[in-house]
């Protein structure tokens, strides 16, 4: 039942993404992007990941507000890109290969699938349930954190989180370098105070 609902939501996200790409009106494209993001939030909640769904909701709201603000003040629409048959064919071919690969990996054609069934990750499987089960059992005692996600993120796998925040930090620095005003001003006006 919940799998069916998640599949429906994924289909909704696909449709929203297609609308966002193909629409000639910028406002409807932005709203379609927002719809796709909120569907992703609902999927996160259905799969029991409120830690993930919460920042996702807030980021979706912020990006939606910012993009609509930009678009409402710009008053122009996207230029129509001409259709390219070869590009569409290559994209469809790559998509088809991907779908076939996923189908075979999930054991679609009667063979032994390489992917574990939905909801049973490899780390939690019975014979080698070392890592995942150990984390879930020991989080409260080892770290004192009642939220197991935080215990894993900031204690067991703190190094991963350090890398994650390094990525954010470097992205922010890159944005500063591209968008900075200080250097631009000095280059343009030497004498101005």
């Amino acid at each position: 039942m919940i799998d069916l609902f998640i599949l429906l939501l994924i289909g909704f996200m696909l449709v929203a993404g297609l609308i966002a790409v193909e629409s000639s009106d910028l406002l409807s494209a932005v709203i379609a992007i927002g719809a796709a993001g909120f569907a992703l939030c609902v999927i996160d909640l259905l799969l029991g990941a409120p830690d993930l769904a919460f920042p996702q909701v807030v980021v979706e709201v912020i990006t939606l507000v910012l993009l609509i603000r930009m678009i409402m003040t710009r008053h122009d629409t996207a230029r129509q890109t001409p259709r390219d048959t070869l590009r569409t064919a290559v994209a469809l071919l790559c998509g088809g290969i991907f779908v076939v690969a996923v189908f075979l990996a999930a054991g679609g054609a009667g063979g032994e699938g390489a992917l574990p069934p939905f909801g049973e990750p490899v780390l939690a499987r019975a014979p080698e349930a070392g890592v995942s089960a150990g984390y879930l059992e020991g989080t409260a005692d080892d770290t004192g954190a009642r939220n197991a996600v935080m215990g894993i993120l900031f204690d067991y796998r703190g190094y991963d989180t350090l890398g994650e925040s390094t990525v954010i930090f470097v992205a922010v620095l890159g944005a500063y370098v591209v968008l900075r005003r200080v250097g631009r001003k000095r280059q343009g006006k030497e004498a101005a105070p």
Partner: protein
Amino acid sequence: MKGMTLVVQNIARVVVGFVMVYGLYITLSGHTSPGGGFAGAVVIMAGIVMLVLAFGGDRAHELVAEYRCQGWSGLGALGFVLVALAGFLRGGWFVNAVPKADSELYGSGSILVADAFVCLLVATGLVGVFLALIAGTRETMHLGRKGKT
């Protein structure tokens, strides 16, 4: 970038305190309930973005320059690395350096500290990028009146 009307400004002035407190709550209670540094930082950033949109980018740039945000963001990153290094006091990289206590707030040791530093990093970094974006739009996209430059 010009601000919005007086109604929007007053409502933003009232609401922003609650938003900030909620963001801090999410940050500091990440180890007991869903949330944590990233989520709280995003909420705090949303509050600041609301203020900037309501009062206008010019006023925001008078109050804080975006390279100041860069400094605070770097401080957050440095603090997170220091939390990791403080683990060597108790034995190794990222070992929980603060002794655990039977407490709601700081019961989980260094997770709280790391959460706070990550919140500082992400919130100030995103706010700085937002301010820089607003500055760019003011110059090139003719939002509202022209800037001082």
